[in-house]
């Protein structure tokens, strides 16, 4: 519990009911007080909550404890310097009327509120562009409402033209309908994606070009919306782990760790020392792999195909270790609530060390091609810059935020799993351009490798799972030999690990930034609600700020430099 945060918030808002949930302070605010509260949270220098992490809603229709108000909207806000998290809850009496928007306070609220509108049907008064974001425009109803059937499929017959949106964006740049009709104006519309090699997955970018310069840009996402959050409501906590693999599929194991860490921190489970070190080793290993894939694809887009072989081949080679460890190449599903699926295999240290050496060699080879390469410099330095203020306002986290010079990293600012005991540094950029984003990732690979080597030296022996028959499965010989073991096994598999009723937010520094999970539990073995705070989603929300005024070819490498992964973006 964060007493400092509670005192600070209670002091600032004496008349508002405050409570705590793990590390965050939860405020309940009435809609007419909302704007004042949020503005104070952001603008007051003693509070300084500059990073709006996520916006979501909760539908209490089926919740065991009945209340008069069905919907609550929740804003999750962070002061990254002081490591404070606040959740502001607002009761919504009538979703059609809704609550006032926060999109003029934080830019990230724009997309966050759109998603809440799309999934829960809550109106945000004064929102500049309230329309669907994940589901298609012909969709009717709001899927995360409890009375929406999970298998109520709706066919989309035609893609949205986005004509209205791009024209509205052009109008903000002073180009209206009349200018467009002028024979001397040559605005050309160019649509990239959603199936295009440059989009690395399914994202749609619509640009208005003047020559090769991007004048205005709008994006459409949601092409890979797979209903993670709705599906998770119907699975036990351990059954959700395989689904988390498919969020950021380039670093699946980090999602596994982030997910179980969130569940464990609510249940107050302290996992074993060895499991903590295993999670550090594997998370850092996957961070390096994630950056390898991102950089490999980026240099392909820039025309440097050789880098792809140097970087991607090491990722490919790492699959040997990974599949020996967890049986799969891409989808690891390696953690469990209360520990790990299993221990390392015998001799893993040698395999890991060889793999780390190979990665270092691959990265060094690539850097000899890149570091002093004039073409790379010309194409990336001072291109698609984003200032630290804008990046924070759009909710950037992870390497993309650090490239803009903000040294926010949860491993340092809110350490877990003994991260404070490791000697590593957080690379930051100075310009927030493409070059900085590339180099921050290169350096993070080296830092991660250093953390892995330190952790490998310190890793203690011992069990990888806690002994608690309400959380972890009994040993197989107990299951086969005695009735208690058998019953315990069945109960855990069928009912799942039961979490105490309540709501909480917990976050983890994933390869792309802050990966958070917001849960609502009704005390059963399945989450009542499970909302992911995906780092990509908010990065993509600020994409237009980076590319407007730049060349269209730079927009392509900018997209690869921010490492958008469809599974995490659209869930």
């Amino acid at each position, binding site marked *: 519990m964060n007493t400092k945060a509670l005192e600070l918030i209670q002091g600032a808002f004496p008349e508002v009911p405050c409570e705590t949930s793990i590390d965050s302070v939860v405020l309940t605010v009435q809609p007419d007080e909302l704007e004042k509260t949020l503005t104070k949270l952001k603008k007051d220098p003693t509070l300084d909550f500059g990073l709006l992490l996520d916006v979501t809603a909760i539908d209490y229709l089926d919740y065991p404890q009945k209340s008069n108000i069905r919907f609550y909207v929740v804003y999750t806000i962070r002061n990254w310097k002081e490591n404070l998290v606040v959740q502001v809850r607002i009761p919504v009496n009538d979703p059609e009327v809704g609550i006032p928007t926060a999109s003029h306070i934080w830019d990230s609220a724009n997309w966050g509120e759109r998603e809440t509108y799309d999934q829960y049907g809550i109106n945000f008064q004064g929102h500049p562009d309230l329309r669907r974001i994940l589901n298609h425009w012909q969709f009717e109803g709001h899927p995360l409402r409890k009375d929406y059937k999970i298998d109520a499929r709706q066919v989309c017959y035609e893609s949205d033209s986005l004509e209205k949106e791009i024209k509205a964006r052009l109008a903000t740049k002073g180009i209206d309908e009349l200018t467009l009709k002028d024979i001397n104006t040559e605005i050309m519309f160019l649509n990239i994606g959603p199936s295009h090699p440059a989009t690395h997955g399914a994202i749609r970018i619509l640009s208005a070009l003047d020559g090769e310069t991007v004048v205005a840009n709008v994006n459409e996402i949601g092409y890979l919306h797979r209903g993670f959050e*709705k599906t998770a409501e119907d699975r036990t906590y351990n059954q959700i782990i395989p689904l988390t693999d498919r969020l950021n599929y380039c670093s699946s194991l980090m999602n596994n760790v982030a997910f179980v860490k969130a569940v464990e921190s609510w249940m107050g489970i302290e996992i074993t020392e060895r499991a903590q070190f295993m999670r550090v080793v594997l998370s850092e290993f996957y961070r390096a792999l994630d950056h390898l894939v991102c950089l490999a694809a980026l240099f392909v887009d820039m025309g440097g195909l050789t880098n792809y072989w140097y970087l991607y081949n090491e990722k490919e080679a790492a699959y040997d270790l990974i599949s020996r460890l967890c049986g799969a190449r891409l989808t690891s599903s390696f953690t469990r609530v209360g520990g790990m699926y299993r221990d390392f295999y015998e001799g893993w240290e040698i395999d890991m060390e060889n793999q780390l050496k190979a990665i270092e060699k691959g990265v060094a080879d690539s850097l000899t091609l890149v570091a002093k390469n004039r073409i790379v410099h010309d194409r990336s330095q001072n291109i698609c810059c984003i200032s630290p203020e804008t990046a924070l306002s759009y909710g950037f986290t992870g390497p993309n935020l650090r490239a803009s010079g903000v040294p926010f990293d949860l491993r340092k600012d809110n350490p877990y799993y003994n991260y404070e005991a490791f000697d590593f540094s957080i690379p930051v950029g100075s310009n927030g351009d493409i070059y900085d984003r590339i180099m921050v990732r290169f350096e993070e690979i080296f830092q991660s490798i250093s953390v892995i080597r330190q952790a490998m030296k310190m890793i203690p022996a011992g069990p990888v799972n806690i002994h608690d028959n309400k959380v972890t499965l009994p040993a197989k010989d107990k299951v086969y030999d005695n009735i208690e073991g058998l019953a315990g096994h069945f109960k855990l598999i069928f009912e799942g690990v039961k979490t105490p009723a309540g709501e909480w937010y917990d976050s983890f520094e994933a390869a792309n930034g802050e990966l958070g999970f917001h849960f609502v539990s009704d005390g059963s073995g399945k989450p009542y609600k499970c909302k992911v705070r995906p780092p990509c989603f908010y990065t993509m929300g600020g994409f237009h700020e980076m590319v407007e005024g730049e060349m269209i070819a730079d927009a392509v490498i900018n997209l690869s430099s921010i490492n958008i992964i469809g599974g995490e973006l659209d869930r």
Partner: protein
Amino acid sequence: MALGLEAKLGDSVLTTQLDVVVNWGRQYSLWPMVFGTACCAIEFMSAAASQHDISRWGAEVVRFSPRQADLMLVCGTISYKQAPILKRIYEQMPEPKWVVAMGACASSGGVYDNYCTVQGIDEIIPVDVYISGCPPRPEAVLDALMKIQDQIKGESVLEDRHKDFKGILD
């Protein structure tokens, strides 16, 4: 012993059937159009990279323009939002064309039995080969490629393929 024309002209002439020679050409120069949406696309990247090397089957010329491709590899989940695009890109590919559904999602919706996921791309376009797995290993992609090659061997240039297919978007 040679017969007919070959008997008269010796080694300088080879007689065969049109189907055989055309199919031979088609089999070993498949140009894939990778409709990559999700995790499976990462495994396709592995199939294309050095270790598994898809060029051993003559299918390394990956085209992202459907107009230059004849093998569509659908790698990943297709949502209802994506479906009209998949159909349009399929239609932009010139005949003859083949479709591989890579992985559980493309084949059947996979774990995503919910409101937004198409339960198998064969609801939208005709599919020739399905690959199981979530995601499939690169070897499975290569196996599917060989299955397509076998299938091409038995086809005829005179017959239209999938003329009577009707999906949910038709």
